[in-house]
Structures are given as C-alpha cells and as structure tokens.
C-alpha cells in the first residue's frame, strides 16, 4: 500500500478522534447542546470506506456523522460551527450535530430518524442509474437500524433495480443500551443480504486497511452494474450512545478489551513495523491535527449566529396566514 495513503488514514482518524473529543469538551462547557453522538472507536469505518470512494460518490449518513462529513472534505471549521449552531456551519446553524449537509461535497445529510437513510440513499441510487452515472452512493446506518422496515424495503428495491449503492453497517453491537443479541434474531448483519439476492460481507471495522480493501472491492462490484452491496463493519464505540448516556449497561472490561484493538494504535503499530511512517512523520501529523481542531473551535466561536427564523421554510416566501398570491 502507498505510504501517502497510510499517512492519510492516520491523519483522518486522528482528526476524527481529536475533533470528537474537542466537541465533547465544548458540550461540557455549554457551547454545544442537544444530542451529541460521538465516533471514537469507530474511525476506521468512515475513513476506510470513504477513502475507497470516488470524489463523485454521494454519502447519506446518520446522526453520528461528523467524521463522515470531514473525511468527505467538509472543513472541520464548518462542522464545528454547525455544532455551535452558527451561520458558518455547514447547515448555517439550522441543523445542528445530527443534521450536517453539504451537497457541494455530495454529502446529502445526517438524519436523526433511525432507518431514514435507507430510502433516501435508494432514491439517490435510482437517480444515478437513471442518468447512467458511474458514481455510487454510500449509505450508513447502525446495527439497530436493520430491524426497521425501511432496511428491508429499500434493500429489496435496490437489488430489484440493481442500483449502485454501498450499504455500510456500522455494527457497534449496541442500539443505545440494547446489545445486538437482544435486538436481532440474526446478529450477523451481512447475512441478511441474501434475502434480497445481493452480495454482502463482514469486515473487521477496527482495521482501517481491511475496511479500505473491502470497500474497494465492494464499490467495484457496485459500479459494475451488479447491484447493491451490504458491507458490515464490526466496530465499537468507546463513549456512551450520546453525551446524555453514561453507558451503565456495559462493563469496563468490555470497553478495555475493545480499546486494545484501537484503530489508531493498531495502524501506527503496523505502519511503524513496516516502515510506512516514521515517528517524526507521526509527530508532524499530530501537530497539524491539533492545530486544525483548535482552528475549528476558534472559527466556531467567532462565527455569527443565523438570524432569520422564517426564511427557508419554503422555496419561495409564502405567508400561509395572510393568503399570499
């Protein structure tokens, strides 16, 4: 594998980790409110899949989407400013943490209703097929989302019409406090693909290189016209479901065991052993990432708030109560 790509992975994952820790700190200080769902532990999934994607590919994600947005190229400043609810945010302060949008980056949103990403991504896939596009769409969701009717309904349509969609399951084994064996009759999510005559496989979601390779192969399939693909990435979240969740339903030992497989630490071990990255290079990346995160917070702090309440509800101004023409 190319050295530059390895460094890219490391940088992306470190930015993801530090950005999310900074967001947690800002939440504690009261600058971010609402529900804040963080990504530490799961970095290899967003980084491995999205670095395998082409710039033209579309992304539809959930409420746990800050990292997907940044890997897609939305600047950390614009993501942090959105978390602060400021006009400089990528949704101009109207969306918040769970609703990041940037069509310019082909990032079609963060959605907070579980199971909502499936039909939306299927619609994007349909458009791509209608226009004979070579692009694909990546659809993200958790292990808890696969029991929603939309999962089954959408996979069926996507497979029936051979739509270019990579369905990426971020299986962190929990639906808030409900462990996967308590919410799913079949805990191997990838095996559900066969019900719709489509391909699926499972990959170690703590290993960015494995996720990247699996995603490349899956995307090649998807682009070949073979239809959608279900990629299950087995991963883990270190923090609670959101900042409101103390995660009392799982043991400290469980978390420690998973931390031993930390995606950042294991990539560094491999990279150092193989001579892909030096300690100096790593320190340079660390310094750059720290500056980027500090810059994001500083930008968010000085970004002004949005001021218009009514503008933007409809495509053109329309006052329902005064009877517009």
């Amino acid at each position, binding site marked *: 594998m190319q050295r530059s790509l390895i460094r890219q992975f490391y940088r992306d994952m470190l930015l993801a980790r530090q950005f999310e820790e900074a967001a947690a700190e800002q939440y504690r200080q009261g600058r971010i409110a*609402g529900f804040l769902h963080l990504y530490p532990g799961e970095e290899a999934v967003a980084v491995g899949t999205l670095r395998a994607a082409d710039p033209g590919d579309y992304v539809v994600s959930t409420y746990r989407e800050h990292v997907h947005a940044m890997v897609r190229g939305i600047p950390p400043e614009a993501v942090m400013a*959105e978390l602060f609810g400021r006009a400089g945010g990528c949704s101009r302060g109207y*969306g918040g943490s769970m609703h990041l949008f940037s069509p310019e980056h082909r990032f079609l949103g963060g959605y907070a209703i579980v199971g909502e990403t499936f039909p939306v991504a299927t619609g994007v896939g349909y458009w791509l097929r209608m226009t004979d596009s070579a692009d694909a769409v990546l659809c993200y969701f958790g292990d808890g989302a696969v029991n929603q009717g939309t999962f089954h309904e959408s996979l069926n349509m996507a497979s029936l019409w051979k739509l270019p969609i990579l369905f990426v399951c971020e299986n962190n084994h929990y639906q808030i406090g409900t462990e996967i064996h308590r919410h799913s009759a079949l805990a191997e999510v990838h095996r559900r693909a066969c019900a719709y005559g489509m391909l699926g496989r499972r990959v170690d979601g703590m290993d960015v290189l494995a996720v990247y390779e699996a995603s490349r192969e899956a995307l090649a399939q998807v682009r070949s016209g073979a239809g959608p693909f279900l990629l299950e990435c087995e991963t883990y979240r270190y923090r609670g479901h959101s900042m409101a969740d103390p995660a009392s339903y799982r043991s400290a030992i469980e978390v420690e065991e998973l931390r031993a497989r930390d995606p950042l630490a294991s990539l560094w071990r491999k990279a150092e052993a193989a001579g892909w990255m030096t300690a100096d290079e790593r320190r340079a990346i660390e310094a750059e990432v720290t500056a980027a995160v500090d810059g994001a917070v500083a930008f968010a702090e000085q970004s002004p708030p949005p001021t218009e309440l009514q503008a933007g*509800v409809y495509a053109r101004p329309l006052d*329902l109560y005064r009877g517009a023409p």
Partner: protein
Amino acid sequence: MAEMMFWEAVRRAHDEEMERDPLVICMGEDIGVVGGTYKATTGLYDKYGPERVIDTPICENSYTGLGIGASFLGVRPIIEIMSVNFSWLALDQIANTAAKVRYMSGGQLTAPCVVRSPGGTAHQLGAQHSGRMEKVFMGIAGLRVVTPSNPRQAYGLIKSAVRCDDPVFINEHEIMYNMKGEVPDEEYFHPLEGSEVAREGRDVSLFGYNVSVHWCLQAAEILAREHGIEAEVVDLYALSPLDRAGIRRSVARTHHALIAEEAEPAVGVGAEVMAILDEECFYELDAPPVRVSAATVPIPYNHTLEKAAIPNAGDIVAAVRKMLGR
C-alpha cells in the same frame, strides 16, 4: 399527598397496574434493562421480567402493532415510543388498526392499548427531534388523546388509560420528566375526558394543555401583579374529545378567551378550540379570541432561533393586554 417527579409518577402507575393485572405489559426501546430514556420504567424489568417488560428492536410500527394485536385478546400493553417524532412511523398501526378496529368490526373487537410518548421542543434537539404531534393524533376518530401537565395527571391518566377499553394516546413532554408535583398517596384515576381549572379568574380565560398550561400560569401571575388582570387558566388535559362544556363554562365567566399551544397554528389544538369558541361561545365573547402558537417552521437548532419559534408567557401577557386594551 407526596411530592414526586413526573417520571416517578409515570413509573408508579406502571408498577401498580402491572402488580394488579398480569396481562398488563410494557414495551419500547431501552425501557427494560436501561429503565427508559427518562427513567420512567426503572426497576420494572427486574421486578416483572423480560416477558412483561419488553426491550424492543427499533421498529416502531411493528412493535406498536404487536401490542395492538395482543390487546385484541386481552393483553393491556403500555407501549412507549421514545419520542413522538418516531410515532410517525407507528401511525399506520395506531390510526388504521387500533383506532378503527372496534367500529369496523361492528363492535366485536377492541384495542385497549396505551401508547405513551414524549414530544415538544426541549433544548436544541433539532428539527427531527422537536415535533409536536398532538394535532395529528387528536384528528383520528376512535383514538383518545390525553396530555398531562403535572405528575398527578400523568399518574392518574396512565391508570385510567390502562383500564379503558379504547386505545389511548398519552402525549408527554420531554422537559417535564423532572418536574415535581403532588400525587395522592391513595390510588387515583384521572378522567380521560374533561378539563381542569388550574387558576380561577374573572377577566380572561387562558386555555392551555401540557407545557402551555405552565406558560398560562406564569402569564396569569404577571397579569395579576403588574396589570390588575385576573386570568382564569383552564388545563385541557383531554385533547380528544375536547371539553366543550368546560370551555363554555369558563368563557361564560370571563367573556374573553386565549388559547396557547406549543405547536404551529395550522390544524391544531388552537384551531379546534377557536372553532368551539365560535360554535358555542360566540355571543358570550366581548372580544375576538386569540391564538398564541409556534412559528410555522421546522424547529431550528440555533438556540436563539429555537426560542423565537416557540411562544412563552410574555407572548401571552402581550396578547391579553392587547385584547383587553389594558
């Protein structure tokens, strides 16, 4: 009378009804092992076991429908939907099955289920977690809709809803779970129909429900203290059916009416109360009645804009002063 928090009152109602009747079960996402997002079912899993306290997968329409189907045969499910915003997904089973089955079966089947769910705008939860859906449910024939404004009502309404042979939707509020209030020590059943006068007054009737009752009470304090206006506050805890007689009685005393709601004005509780005022109180009114509602927008995340979208006690005070010219 003991003081307890709203969530404790909800929990007590569950516990008493489950203790009494083995066919009462409860179900929802994270209500068992975790004890519920708002702690409202804490300890029930340990006490009654996984068969009666069900942690469901995320599939609102199907688990709600499961509860409804079981209710045909005598089970009394208390179904929790974590947030009303997800009840859009369960609307099919609630509206098409639970609400209609008694009538369309010629009275042979009935769906005695309870669906509870918190709605409202809390603190910057964003557009998809700030819905106010009472207007959707109250428009469904065959479904009862109630909405508690304090722990006593929450406790008593759940108890009555479990015993009721109709499906009942209980609209709670995310910001109220830690509110304290007095709840009778003895068993108490709150009526599923009617309204309550929360404060007496002679100059104007302020109609509210759920969180807006509290805005009306605050406004009434300010109006009395600063403007010498005595407002009556009427708590419309039953949204379907609405208490026409109670509305009429209050307006007959005050001859002025205002309705405060947390939702957008269109097709809502306020619109319905306005229609009742028109149909039943037209000649009692000394001034056109007023609606204080939210802005017609999806709720913005930004804190200042979010606050601007939702009415408050100050808006009610201003509207009353304008109505009375004082």
